[in-house]
């Protein structure tokens, strides 16, 4: 993955890298700021919620104490020496069954019962009318005599509900009895607490079924299993277990679980997250716009510089870059530097060309002078012989004259030949382009200049090459020069006398090459560097020294190249002519 990304990154444009980089940077900043903000807000809200829960616990404890006092007062009145409890036990059946019912005060005294020592309920006022039934809490009533109120789960039409109970043990005549009074911690209690502390109290739960376990102080695993009075606003288990901040209150005989609704926190956090997402999206949008704009400003001059450099490299010495109006000093300096460099390069090039031109002409003049000097010496000698023979009145003066005049004429003719060749070199006629088949051209040249019987000529010619658009006469001059040179080199050399001419499409697909190689002596290293310089020849007085120079110029005029190598296979020289093929004959693709 990293490698893949790295490769992608390497191939990205600078503009895309800049945009991507700014995008990532802005995203990271927004993300970090959001997380920090959310964590901070959550911490603050949790502190508030904890304080709220503490206040709630205090209020509930106050409530419990007040309830204890109220229950104690009721018990004192109910079970005292003149209280109604005795009447309930000893009175008429109707009193036993309904008497306790009449003592109930909803919200103050919800539970009221008289229990015999064996656990039989003698009279009960709360639901269900349970006279004659065994009270499951009798052991607690009998054994727990501490001063604290106890949390007891009492039956309700819906199941069980926690009630805070107080009881006293007494006697009715000789019969020991237990009088129990209690108050349900029900929905009304939740509503009352909710109003007073301004938060949702979702559940009041007695954690264990009777007998209540004082040690059950761990967090309730599920309110579903516990006996809970739940606020109707959130009466489902998921809300109770996940959306509630729990606190426990130790009550005699059990634990009272209190849950404070934490949905407010979740709502606030959700709001922050929502706003953060919106701000983040906005920031990212702005970042993209800004980065595109910045990248444009930063990259555009660089792209202009790159384009100008490419033009310069391609030979456009006038390539320059305009300085953008709002560019900074760095970019402006870079562009000015490039333009200055290009101008210097142009001037140096001009100077170099001038120098090369002068140098070339110096070489040409030197060679021409040398070539001109060679015939002049025999002419001078001949003229001095003629002059001397005339002065001596030689009887064979006519013969001498005839002989020396012939030599002079020969040298003059040579001078004329030199003059013609130089004229051709100096001023090539205008090209007459026509379609030519390279194979035919090569065959024609071979037919003219490679007719020696001892010569072994090899042809490797691609017959499917496209036609060239070239000057036939000039191209024939090139081929004849190369073939003639090769034939002369081979014929002076011992066996084998081999000449190989090959014509084929180059590997680049857009050029073709004509290769002429031989088994001659090859090219001497001292000559190789100046081989295409005018008046450099290896053939002594037999050559003009302009053949290869003229051939090179013709090839260059046709947009090609001419290079000389040593033939590794045949042992002689190897000349390679590269010519561009017509555009329509470009590279062919092979489909699989």
């Amino acid at each position, binding site marked *: 993955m990293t490698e893949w990304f790295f490769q992608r990154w390497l191939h990205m444009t600078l503009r895309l890298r800049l945009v991507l980089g700014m995008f990532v940077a802005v995203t990271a900043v927004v993300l970090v700021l959001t997380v920090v903000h959310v964590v901070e807000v959550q911490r603050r809200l949790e502190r508030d919620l904890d304080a709220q829960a503490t206040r709630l616990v205090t209020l509930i404890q106050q409530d419990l104490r007040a309830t204890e006092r109220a229950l104690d007062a009721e018990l004192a009145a109910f079970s005292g020496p003149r209280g109604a409890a005795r009447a309930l036990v000893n009175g008429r059946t109707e009193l036993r069954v309904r008497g306790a019912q009449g003592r109930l005060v909803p919200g103050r005294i919800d539970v009221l019962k008289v229990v015999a020592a064996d656990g039989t309920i003698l009279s009960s006022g709360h*639901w*269900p009318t*349970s*006279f*004659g039934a065994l*009270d499951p809490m009798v052991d607690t009533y009998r054994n727990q005599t501490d001063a604290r109120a106890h949390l007891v789960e009492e039956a309700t*039409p819906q199941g069980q509900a926690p009630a805070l109970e107080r009881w006293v043990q007494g006697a009715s005549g000789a019969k020991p009895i237990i009088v129990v009074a209690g108050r349900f911690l029900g929905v009304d209690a939740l509503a009352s607490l909710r109003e007073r502390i301004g938060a949702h109290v979702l559940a009041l739960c007695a954690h264990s079924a009777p007998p209540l376990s004082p040690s059950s102080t761990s967090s309730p695993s599920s309110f579903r299993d516990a*006996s809970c009075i739940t606020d109707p606003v959130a009466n489902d288990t998921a809300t109770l277990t996940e959306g509630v901040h729990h606190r426990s209150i130790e009550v005699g005989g059990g634990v009272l679980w209190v849950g404070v609704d934490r949905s407010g926190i979740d709502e606030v956090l959700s709001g922050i997250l929502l706003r953060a997402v919106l701000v983040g999206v906005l920031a990212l949008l702005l970042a993209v716009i800004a980065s595109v704009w910045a990248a444009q400003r930063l990259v555009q001059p660089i792209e202009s510089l790159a384009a100008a450099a490419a033009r310069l490299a391609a030979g456009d010495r006038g390539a320059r870059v305009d300085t953008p109006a709002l560019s900074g000093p760095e970019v402006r300096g870079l562009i000015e530097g490039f333009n200055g460099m290009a101008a210097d390069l142009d001037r140096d090039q001009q100077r170099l060309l001038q120098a090369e031109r002068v140098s070339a002409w110096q070489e040409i003049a030197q060679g021409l002078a040398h070539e001109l000097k060679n015939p002049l010496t025999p002419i001078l000698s001949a003229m001095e012989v003629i002059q001397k023979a005339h002065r001596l009145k030689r009887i064979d003066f006519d013969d001498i004259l005839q002989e020396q005049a012939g030599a002079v004429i020969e040298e003059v003719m040579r001078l004329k030949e030199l003059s013609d060749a130089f004229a051709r070199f100096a001023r090539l006629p205008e090209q007459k382009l026509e379609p030519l088949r390279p194979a035919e051209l090569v065959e024609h040249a071979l037919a003219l200049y490679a007719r020696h019987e001892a010569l072994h000529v090899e042809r490797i010619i691609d017959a499917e090459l496209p036609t060239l658009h070239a000057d036939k006469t000039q191209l024939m001059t090139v081929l004849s020069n190369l073939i003639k040179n090769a034939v002369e080199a081979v014929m002076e050399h011992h066996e084998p006398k081999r000449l190989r001419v090959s014509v084929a499409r180059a590997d680049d697909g857009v050029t073709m090459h004509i290769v002429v190689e031989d088994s001659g002596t090859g090219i001497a290293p001292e000559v190789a560097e100046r081989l295409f310089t005018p008046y450099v020849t290896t053939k002594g007085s037999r050559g003009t020294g302009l053949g290869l120079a003229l051939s090179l110029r013709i090839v260059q005029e046709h947009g090609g190249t001419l290079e000389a190598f040593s033939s590794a296979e045949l042992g002689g020289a190897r000349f390679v002519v590269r010519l561009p093929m017509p555009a329509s004959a470009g590279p062919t693709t092979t489909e699989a």
Partner: protein
Amino acid sequence: MTHHPRSRALHSPGLGAPARMSLVLCLLVAVTSAHARRSQAPGGTVTVLLPEEQVPAFVEAHTHVTLMEHGPAGPGWSAPSVVGAGGFRSAAVARVEHPQPTKWVLHGRTGVSGLATSVERCFNDDARWPRQLLQAAGLTVTTTGNDTTATMVSSRALDVMPMMLTACPLLVDGGAPSGTFAAAGLRLSKRKSAFEPAPFLQAIQIVVDSANPDNRTADARSADVRAVHDDVTDVRTDTTTLLAPSPSVWVLVQNAAARAEDPLGLRTDDGLVRLQDEWRIDLLAAVYGAGRAAPTTSLLPTALAPARAVLEPPKSSVAKQPLALQPLPASAPKVRVGVQGGDALAAALVERLALLLRSRGVLLEAVSMPGEGPPPSIQLMRFVPVIDDAAISMLAFVGAALNNDEAILTSVRDARLLNADAAIRMAAALDLERSLQQQRALVPLLSVDSAVGVHPQLHGVRVLINGTPRLVDAWWTEEP
């Protein structure tokens, strides 16, 4: 123009001139006698305290005449007899024909309209016992006819058709009053153009009883007629107490599902004995029955059934166990129990039943009846006789309480229950009572007399068999 019923006998076909004269003289004497009694102290208003569920029946009993009346004539004015239906009287129907075992034809008295419509609506109203009886018996009745004639054709022989018509009000003009009073809310006002003679009372004011007797208003406490069961604390020493012809019986009803699941363990005699022991019906009857309730082991009260050998009380070999009030979470198994009526006795029965079920590990969910949704599998219902006939009353009750219980419906489709012979019907009713109890479909708990307290200066009040007071013939006398 409305004709008074007493003039219609003059046009009865088939009577000779002497007979007609005799009949006219008899009618004149009877009407004069009735009016003489009513004219003792005409006018005045009576305030009647009623449980909410009894209000519709009370209003209908005063605003509509029934197609048939059964039983002996009352102390006041009585409707004329119906030709062709011995023992029945009617202000709306003059003659009944029974040409085939499955066919009955009613001929209305002069001026009566809507006869066929009244019968058809009555037999298709799910809330009326004729419809419930037909469902229980597996019968269908097709009614045709017009304003003055109705022809009923049943799918099987239906000899008790006149009895069923006692539950059908005469609906004239699409439901307009046909009785002696017209209702405007809870106030009934005297009507003149009725099929019966005008009543003495000018108006009747209904006061609906509060669910909690302690919350009764001053009007309720001072009502002239009090048809509530728990008025022990409001007793006036000079109140005249009238009883309905038959007590009602509180019954535990178990449908097929309840009998299969048997949450109360009633399938065995041991279970039934345990339930009866733990329920302490005797105590509840004593405390909440206001002195008018008594435990019973029979469905049919004495007023309906003759002296007979009832089922032998079940015996149990299991030692008595104390009732355990075990704690149950809200997720414990739960049984829906339908409860009919909302008086203190009903509440005590349900509360105690909740305790019994809780001791068996089951929670009780009380549902008021009639209510919406599927009927509960267990119901606490009052068996209130609809007519002074055991078979008809039981059929109607089964149709109301167990109309989806195919096993029970199969057992009650006994043709003898609808036989014309009262003795045969009674024998079948006793068999049915025994069968339902043995199947534990019905468990009788206690019988309660329907008592009506009446102001000592108010006379002529009748209490119908369903406990509804009827004041059509009532009048005030001056204080002695």
